[in-house]
């Protein structure tokens, strides 16, 4: 069977090709249609006049506000409460641990102080 007949049979089985581009863009032409050549119509709302004085609050709500400036950590009172507490705790532990214990009594005559180990 010739290849042309096979190709023709395949096209017949595929069905008719829908002429979409031709019907919407006017006269038919060959090759791909560049989308930039057909500017989309602007939305209808863009053609209306916006009365800003009518609803200023609505306009303000639509515009996003800039985020508030972040306070540095060292300027927060919680930071100094935690840091001060940790410092006081460390000082207390250091003093308690390094404080010498009670000293035993030493006599005034030899052997002065005898320790049974």
């Amino acid at each position: 069977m010739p290849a042309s007949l096979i190709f023709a049979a395949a096209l017949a089985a595929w069905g008719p090709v829908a002429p979409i581009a031709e019907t919407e863009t006017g006269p038919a032409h060959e090759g791909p249609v560049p989308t930039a050549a057909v500017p989309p119509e602007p939305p209808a709302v863009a053609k209306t006049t916006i009365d800003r004085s009518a609803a200023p609050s609505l306009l303000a709500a639509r515009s996003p506000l800039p985020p508030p400036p972040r306070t540095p950590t060292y300027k927060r009172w919680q930071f100094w409460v935690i840091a001060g507490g940790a410092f006081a705790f460390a000082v207390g532990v250091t003093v308690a641990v390094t404080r010498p214990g009670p000293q035993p009594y030493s006599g005034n005559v030899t052997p002065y102080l005898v320790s049974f180990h």
Partner: protein
Amino acid sequence: MLLAAAAGCHEPVTEVVVVLQSDLRVPTETDGILVSVNPGSVAPTAQLSMLATTQVISELAFPLSIGFTSEGTTPNFSITVQLQHGVTQFAPTIVVSRTITDVRFVDQQTMMLVVPFLRTCACMGTSCPSPGDPSCDNIETPVLKPFDPALAPPSTMMPPFTGL
């Protein structure tokens, strides 16, 4: 809570302070002291003592004192104290000698034992008073009292002898 735990790391000292009182005059009647120490309840002797020290006390005055601390190795100790005369000479003589045995430590407390060395208990030559006078006799398992700084001389802060 951690502070309390850290503060609890220092346990109170377990100590017995022996205070030696005497009406003997220094140095005319006594000028030296010999102290012998034994852990346990065995009285130290010249042949058997774990520690024996002699000191000239010509520059000292009564009361004299010695501290004994325990690290838990022995619950008691015994001592013999001899007040001597003529320690700077070749053969010192014993003026008064007393032995205290079975001195018991009280855990984590500083106790005191006051031992008098009276002139009436002094030996005359080679003869010493016969037993029967409580103020001159040896003492076994003495009753200790809480440490009273008013009765003891100030602590000299000398380092402990740890050879026992």
